């Protein structure tokens, strides 16, 4: 039971909005101590785990080129391009990206997306640009809502697309785990049974996206009323 103290620290820390790095570190050290490690052992275990997880930070290597292109007007260009498509609305831009992201992920092409590479420089400016095109100036609240939706589309389409591809990490993990327990399953079977949920994800989230244009329109009208 004592080993659950880390979870408690994380929950309380996030609620109190203490710096998450500090919260997570304290939670990690406390969990290690509760699990019976000595103080120096805990620090060493934390350091070792941090070092072996460095691969998650490699995505930051894209920042120099993305920054360079932003300086040269990449976001502005993405907005202009969308502005020329008269049928483009925020909902439609995000729907198209959702479909592309989910399909390519299902084919194993999970790298055709990502927040640093695609959402910040291209997708979010396009989704914002589609709304700006219609309403000129957007209130900040609306601008932030559109950006958050762009990030959510990238996540949801990825999560519920990639599991249809047989060589993805989660399928390999399931297979390995079941193998250890004496149950042999085929990766193709696992991938097939991910399809019903993938379809539900598409239907649910795309339906919600269809309402986004209306929400944006209401927020603009609300602001116009007040001024």
């Amino acid at each position, binding site marked *: 039971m004592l080993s*659950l103290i880390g979870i408690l620290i*994380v929950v309380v820390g996030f609620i109190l909005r203490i*710096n*998450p*790095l500090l919260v997570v*570190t304290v*939670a990690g050290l406390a969990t*290690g101590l509760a*699990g019976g490690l000595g103080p120096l052992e*805990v*620090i*060493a275990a*934390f*350091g070792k785990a*941090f*070092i072996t*997880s*460095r691969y*998650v*930070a*490699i*995505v*930051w*290597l894209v*920042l*120099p*080129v*993305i*920054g*360079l292109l*932003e*300086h*040269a*007007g*990449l976001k*502005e*260009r993405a907005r202009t391009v969308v502005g020329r498509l008269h049928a483009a609305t925020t909902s439609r831009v995000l729907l198209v990206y959702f479909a592309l992201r989910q399909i390519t992920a299902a084919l194993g092409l*999970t790298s*055709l997306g990502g*927040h640093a590479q695609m*959402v910040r420089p291209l997708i979010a400016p396009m989704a914002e640009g589609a709304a700006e095109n219609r309403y000129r100036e957007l209130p900040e609240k609306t601008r932030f809502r559109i950006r*958050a939706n*762009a*990030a*959510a589309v990238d*996540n*949801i389409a990825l*999560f*519920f697309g990639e*599991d249809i591809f047989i060589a993805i990490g*989660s399928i390999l*993990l*399931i297979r390995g785990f079941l193998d250890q327990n004496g149950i042999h399953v*085929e990766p193709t079977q696992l991938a097939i*049974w*991910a399809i*019903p*949920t993938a379809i*539900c*994800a598409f239907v649910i989230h795309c339906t919600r996206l269809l309402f986004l244009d209306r929400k944006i329109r209401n927020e603009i009208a609300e602001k116009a009323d007040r001024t």
Partner: protein
Amino acid sequence: MITLEHIYWLTGLMMAGVSIVNWRDRSNPRRFNNTAFWGIYAVTFLAGTYLPDLVSGVLVIGMVLVASIRGLGQGRGESATRDEREASAARWGNKLFIPALAIPILTVLGTVLFKKITIGGSPLVDVKQVTVISLAIATLIALTIGLLMLRPPLSAPIREARRLLDAVGWAAVLPQMLAALGALFAIAGVGNVVSGLAQRWIPLDHPSAVIATYAIGMAVFTMIMGNAFAAFPVMTAGIGLPLIVQKFGGDPTIMSAIGMLSGFCGTLMTPMAANFNIVPTALLELPDENAVIKVQIPTALLLLAANVLLMNFLVFRH
């Protein structure tokens, strides 16, 4: 052979550059904090493989203290005004998309091709890490294209990286920190305690109740751990296999496939999955760090309900 280690050196060099640019920037009131933070981070990339674990641990704690005691600052924002960027965008037109789109396209090409390229019998890149290495190489090529095309001063890429990385701030390190937390959870056996609690307190004598417990448990446990991969073995060994498969005769393939996806519903709802949920709010400069989670919660809950229904419907049909 190109391995992950080489990519770490490259990342370390970039972090060191970011640290140096911060050191020289007097417009940032907390420039020495930023210098120390990214500087220590650079050391973990450049030397991490060779450092004793205890030294790494002390370095990490040093970073956390720098980031949380007085906090990181930012230099003055954009390097060009909006008008300048509009003018540049008009000048370069759609050519600007070439380097940007080169990153994902070359990454995908690399993951396919590098597996086939061998030099003297050994592969050119470490096949196990092919995606990450491809991403790094694709980025270098895209940067070269960008530099040849735009001809900025040579220090521009690292100054731009500094601008973006400082905008993201400490959130850039959070995913890695959470992965470390997950490792300590595993050492302390947190998973077994949680699944033990679930087994003791939840009525598990009806198939539908068990399925709901398994799917919702996957989501909740994923929210706690920040990662469905950590939740899956614990929940499946604790509830899925003994009850759904052995006691009620459910199909393990369908159960596992939908169980994992129920976990992904949890990923959408937790700040612990920082690289998906917190990092983008920093990257997109949103004031509310839970903004992305708030958008995702309705979809996640509806989809979790759909998963419970699907599993009920499908798992006993064979």
